């Protein structure tokens, strides 16, 4: 492999790739037995409700996307709480069972506090974004819906008890189309959080598309998205006074042709110190809006190579995971797709050029039978490289009764990084042999022990909580506080340096319709020099700060502007 490098047409990308690969764990690591373990603690967590998204079996497109999940510390008590964007049914899309907020009790259990904090949102919710838009020190919630989206301000000061207040109209963010994913990010570099909202398509519940206009492998199925009118995305600029203004057209994020948007991540993909926007579009080209630093964006999806797969084929593109899988310092983009297709790993070669390298990492053919959604690249076994989790489940109920080369309910996929490739792990937990209508998922350390747990929503089924019970290894957990309203430093890059080995994480929203914990999780692995660790934080505006020495098995709390950092204990690590 790579033997043609000598005297080759010397692409700098390849040189960078070879250099990068030298930092990837050796084959000896690949031969180690897996230690990854997950336990289904759904029941023990006392999160005992089922998501609603129409009825089963789904008949129409509106019923199939499921609801999102967010990990956030809404009460600032130091542990991660959970928010669920719950749906409704076609007969009354405005009055479903309602979204839910669960507070983390700190003992492995959660308590439904939805009513206690004044949340009563029963519209057909889809996705969620978390950010402190008003800079008051508490995380607010933006909830995308079929119909009017909702901004819930987290009121956390004053004499009254903590509560969420619907400030949608006052803030000017009441987009009333079919929203899917959304992300808070500092798009204009002024320190506060702007908002990107992804929309899907026009769907009239009173006159839904006729069933069966579409045919999938010879079987009539629900109609869409092809043939239904797509809806454009929305970009809101935060004016800093509690209100937003729609800058979609002015910013250049209103391409001539709207597309069927499903997922979004915002981060500095080209390393120029501004936040770019990647939008996963269903069945058509993805968008990559490159931030030009002057308040405008240029759409470069096709030119950059990230709009489609290596063959030029457009894909369904639901979930999006970010990680530096080739170690070249640039964020790579993994996307999940439809059955009969493969998921896709786009390597970021130089910030502006992407190349589909799914096969190189062993992630292509193995995914053909699965229809996948939420996903995340995280070092689940804390061995120093990032593994991959994917929620899966088909949209066509006909897959349960007809042979469609796939199944209606599917197991989640867990891939363990083994040397240069990812290998599917079927042994790390019973859930990997289970069958779910998996949809969104969020990642974070809900039991505060330093490793990454998973919460997955399912279609018209119970929420699933998978606790990471892998053996404790040395870890470092980094939490940032940025300037102004960007209190978690959304859009920052965090690098942990151990000798010549560099691991990189990006703090961004999350995957499909969901939000991960705003933290960077590092496993140190066995071979790293754990006594010689340093951290470099590249803030969203490209300013960098270095911190050293970094202790292991602690939460590292970094505030922008301070040269010092604080630490907090992790459970089970002598803290």
């Amino acid at each position, binding site marked *: 492999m790579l033997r043609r490098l000598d005297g080759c047409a010397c692409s700098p990308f390849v040189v960078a790739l070879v250099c990068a690969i030298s930092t990837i764990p050796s084959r000896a690591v690949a031969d180690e037995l897996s230690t990854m373990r997950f336990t289904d603690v759904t029941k023990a967590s006392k999160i005992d409700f089922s998501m609603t998204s129409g009825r089963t079996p789904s008949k129409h497109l509106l019923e199939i996307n499921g609801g999102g999940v967010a990990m956030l510390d809404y009460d600032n008590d130091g542990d991660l709480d959970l928010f669920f964007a719950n749906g409704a049914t076609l007969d009354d899309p405005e009055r479903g069972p309602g979204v839910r907020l669960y507070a983390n009790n700190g003992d492995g259990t959660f308590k439904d506090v939805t009513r206690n904090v004044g949340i009563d949102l029963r519209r057909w919710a889809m996705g969620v974004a978390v950010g402190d838009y008003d800079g008051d020190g508490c995380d607010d919630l933006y909830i995308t819906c079929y119909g009017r989206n909702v901004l819930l301000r987290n009121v956390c000061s004053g004499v009254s008890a903590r509560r969420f207040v619907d400030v949608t109209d006052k803030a000017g963010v009441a987009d009333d189309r079919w929203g899917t994913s959304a992300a808070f990010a500092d798009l204009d570099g002024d320190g506060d959080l702007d908002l990107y909202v992804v929309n899907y398509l026009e769907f009239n519940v009173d006159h839904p598309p006729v069933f069966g206009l579409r045919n999938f492998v*010879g079987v009539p199925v629900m109609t869409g998205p092809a043939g239904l009118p797509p809806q454009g995305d929305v970009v809101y600029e935060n004016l800093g006074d509690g209100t937003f203004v729609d800058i979609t057209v002015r910013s250049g994020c209103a391409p001539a042709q709207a597309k069927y948007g499903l997922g979004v991540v915002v981060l500095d993909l080209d390393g120029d110190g501004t936040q770019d926007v990647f939008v996963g579009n269903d*069945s058509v080209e993805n968008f990559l809006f490159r931030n030009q630093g002057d308040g405008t964006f240029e759409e470069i999806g096709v030119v950059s190579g990230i709009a489609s797969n290596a063959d030029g084929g457009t894909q369904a593109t639901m979930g999006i995971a970010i990680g530096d899988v080739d170690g070249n310092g640039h964020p790579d983009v993994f996307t999940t797709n439809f059955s009969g297709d493969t998921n896709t790993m786009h390597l970021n070669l130089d910030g502006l050029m992407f190349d589909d390298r799914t*096969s190189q990492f062993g992630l292509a053919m193995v995914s053909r039978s699965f229809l996948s959604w939420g996903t995340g690249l995280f070092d689940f076994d804390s061995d120093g490289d990032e593994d991959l989790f994917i929620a899966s489940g088909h949209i066509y109920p006909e897959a349960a009764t007809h042979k469609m080369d796939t199944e209606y309910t599917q197991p989640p996929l867990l891939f363990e990084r083994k040397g240069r490739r990812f290998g599917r792990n079927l042994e790390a937990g019973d859930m990997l042999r289970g069958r779910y209508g998996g949809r969104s998922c969020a990642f974070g350390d809900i039991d505060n022990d330093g490793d990454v747990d998973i919460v997955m929503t399912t279609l018209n089924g119970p929420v699933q909580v998978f606790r990471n019970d892998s053996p404790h290894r040395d870890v470092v957990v980094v939490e940032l506080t940025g300037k102004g309203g960007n209190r978690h430093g959304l859009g920052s890059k965090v690098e942990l340096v151990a000798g010549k080995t560099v691991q990189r994480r990006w703090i961004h929203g999350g995957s499909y319709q969901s939000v991960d914990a705003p933290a960077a999780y590092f496993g140190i692995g066995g071979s790293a020099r754990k006594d010689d660790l340093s951290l470099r934080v590249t803030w969203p505006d490209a300013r960098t700060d270095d911190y050293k020495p970094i202790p292991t098995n602690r939460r590292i709390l970094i505030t922008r502007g301070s040269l010092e950092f604080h630490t907090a204990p992790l459970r089970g690590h002598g803290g």
Partner: protein
Amino acid sequence: MEHRQVNRRWVVASVASFAFVGTSVPDTNAQIRQATEQDGAADSKDESLKARGPMPPPWVLPQCYKLIQQQLYEKARQLVAPVVANHPGWAKAHFYLGLTYSKQHQHERARELFMRALKLDPSYHTVRIHCGWSSYLLGRVGESRQMFESLLAVDPNYADAVFALGLLDFDDDNLPSARQHYLRAIELCQGSKDTRTEAKARARLADVHIRTGDLQAAKQELDRSIQLKPDNAEPYFKLSRVLQRMGDAEGASRARSKHEAAVRAAQATPVPSRGRRSE
């Protein structure tokens, strides 16, 4: 069972386009007819006929094949399904029923029927190329490789099977072996004037060059692939990526336009769903 020689003309012709990778349904009427007649002749000489149970009416299977060739898969299925039920020992009936499914990209059903045909008659090597592709498209890479390798053990010059092994090698990140298989497939295609498979193999060889950073070599292969089959969309897209990386933005833009035009032209030609949502 007798050892039945692989009918190469039949099989080579049977590899029609699946995306650009290739799948396994006959696309030339004359070759299908010829193959059917030859298979029928082989059957009549087969001394093991008795072991297969009662013979189906002699017109049924050729008729079924005609329907497949006319893309009337449901009708073909209606015709052959009772044969499978009533004459379960006849490998060819299972094979034909499998073809009706693989042509509609229902590879799980097709694979089961192909496997059954092979179980009934392990020397029925024609089935292996089809079964190999169905397994491939189901993501069963080990089984797919085994099918192609077993076919090549009988006919080492089977270009499409060699090409398929190149794809499997590439998926396995074994670039030297992928390159070797693509080159061999190209060599075989040049001998047999199989421009379709040669065009595919050259486009895939370009993938190997792209991975190893030899963009000039990749460009050459893509240019040749386009020359061979100008209606294929995929090489234009890959060429646009290569030119972009070589700094030729104008050339990349031209290639992108041609890719879009080729996609539009392909969409204007009705083909069965490939089982992808983007269609």
